[in-house]
């Protein structure tokens, strides 16, 4: 069963008194273990698709199914719970909370899920160690390198053990070495049974994905198929 399924999703924005349709009956399905890169020119609707998939933006039409539930049929609070439990976000700008240290930023995700605090602490320590941040546990984001910030954001995204990881240009601000480390993490996540949908402009990053799709006139088309690299 697909972790994420979009069927005939349409989304339009109003602009200058008219409507600009960015997604036209977009359809996709992400099975466990899928690592998909989504490419397309700026304004093609890549981020919109990601937000719809992440239950942040309701489509105008079509159907979204996440972990067997229809998030947009749920009340806002229930949808937030579903998001906290099933979805992890990684952003190009990291979006760490500036006044929390690495450990606290990672643990911020557990507030949303309402999970067991001790278990969360334990998992946070594991993730911090796994991403090579042990020496930075009590450092603020302003004291970290960009790579460390992105790894912190990754640890935060993985804390609640989601089944879907949505990454929006996760390597956009990173040097090749740091980018490689992040892509390795995403790949590992997919290999462990999760599904990854990564928006990227970078061909190199896309090449690390199992499959690459592109958005053309609001529709998803399979662009290139490439074997996942470990």
């Amino acid at each position, binding site marked *: 069963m697909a972790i994420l399924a979009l069927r005939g999703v349409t989304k339009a924005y109003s602009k200058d008194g008219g409507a600009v349709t960015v997604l036209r009956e977009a359809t996709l399905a992400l099975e466990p273990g899928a690592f998909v890169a989504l490419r397309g020119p700026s304004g093609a609707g890549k981020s919109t698709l990601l937000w719809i998939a992440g239950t942040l933006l309701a489509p105008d039409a079509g159907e979204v199914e996440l972990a067997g539930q229809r998030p947009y049929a749920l009340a806002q609070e229930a949808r937030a719970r579903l998001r906290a439990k099933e979805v992890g976000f990684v952003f190009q700008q990291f979006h760490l*909370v500036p006044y929390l240290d690495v450990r606290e930023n990672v643990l911020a995700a557990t507030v949303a899920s309402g999970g067991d605090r001790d278990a969360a602490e334990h998992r946070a320590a594991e993730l911090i160690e796994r991403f090579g941040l042990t020496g930075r546990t009590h450092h603020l984001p302003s004291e970290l390198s960009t790579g460390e910030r992105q790894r912190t954001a990754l640890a935060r995204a993985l804390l609640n053990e989601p089944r879907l990881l949505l990454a929006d240009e996760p390597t956009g601000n990173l040097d090749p070495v740091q980018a490689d480390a992040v892509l390795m993490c995403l790949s590992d996540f997919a290999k462990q049974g999760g599904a990854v949908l990564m928006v990227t402009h970078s061909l190199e990053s896309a090449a690390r994905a199992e499959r690459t799709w592109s958005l053309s006139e609001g529709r998803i088309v399979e662009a290139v198929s490439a074997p996942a690299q470990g």
Partner: protein
Amino acid sequence: MVWREIAHRKLNFVLGMLAVSIAMASLAGAFTLLESYRLRTELFVAERRAEVEADAARMEDDVRKITKNLGFNVLILPRDQNLADVYARGFAEKTMPEEYAKRLANTELITVNHLLPSLTRKLVWEEQKRTIVLVGTRGEIPILQRSEKKPILDAVPKGKIVLGYELHRQLGLQPGDTVRLQGREFKVHKNHPARGNQDDITVWIDLAEAQDLLEMPGRINAILALQCNCATVDRMAEIRAEISKILPDTQAVEFQSQAVARAEARKLATAKALQDVERERKLQEQTRRDREALAAWLVPLLILASAAWVGLLVFGNTRERVAEVGVLRALGWRSAQIVWLFMAKALAMGAFGAGAGFVLGWALGAAWGEADLRAAFDPKLLGACLVLAPLLAAIASWLPAQRAAGQDPVAVLRED
């Protein structure tokens, strides 16, 4: 997370706390000042009242001592004698037995020092063709149970006559001269100086001779009791009670005494002083009411201004934290959790502001009200501040917090 954010944006928190502190300081200060003022007024009135009462007690004691030493005079008259006639005529028309004077003297009458029985009549001095007042007097009657005292008035010896000023002046009589009165011969014993009253046309002779002359044997119409002393302030009532026990068919009136006037003056002085104290109390009460009226609009105004300021600060804080809130929403934080982020900060702002404001207001209020700091401390007021300030801050933050919680995370992420 709330404490981390407070530590991260100290200025925002300090400004909010300052606003709450000012509001709570004004509240605590106003109440403490009013309470200090009330305590001071109570103390002042109690002190003044005690002072006046002590003065009154001292005056009462002084009066007792003074009047005890001075003594005063009482006129004992027949019970059926109309006092109006006595005042109009200058003497009593009715008579009573001379024996009454002896009875008084022979009892344990502790309040009277001297007893002078007399018989007085107005008559025409036939030999001189003029109206005179004839007074028969026998001098003092010795009082039983008393050590002998120097007589306050000398008796007129038998066969002698004492003349008032107008009589001896107009008749040219000198001590030692012989004069006839209603057919009897008397030798002038003494001439009185001018007194400017009825005494100037009065003739004094021995009581027995007067009774004989007026054909009223054994009768008198007054007993003058001189230098009456009592331990208590209400002496007249005490003397009346004593005399009425011994001579039931007589009446006693105060005669040429200033003691009553003095006592009245003392009472008036005390009443006046108490009135002054009461007036001062009312004045201070009025001042207190005026200050209460001022506080009644000033304090709520400051509280509202403070609430508005806290609301603005929280609103500014939500704008600063748009990206943070958007990402937290993306992570799955629910609206209530976002609202709590801001409300908890506002509650902390209110609680710290309440503590600081209370201490400031309490200290200033007590200092201004010149009250003891501990006496002016009101735990209920502290409790009210600790409840009111966080509540106020929470109410003021409610709308900005709701606005923050309702923001669209996509709008934030779109900025990337």
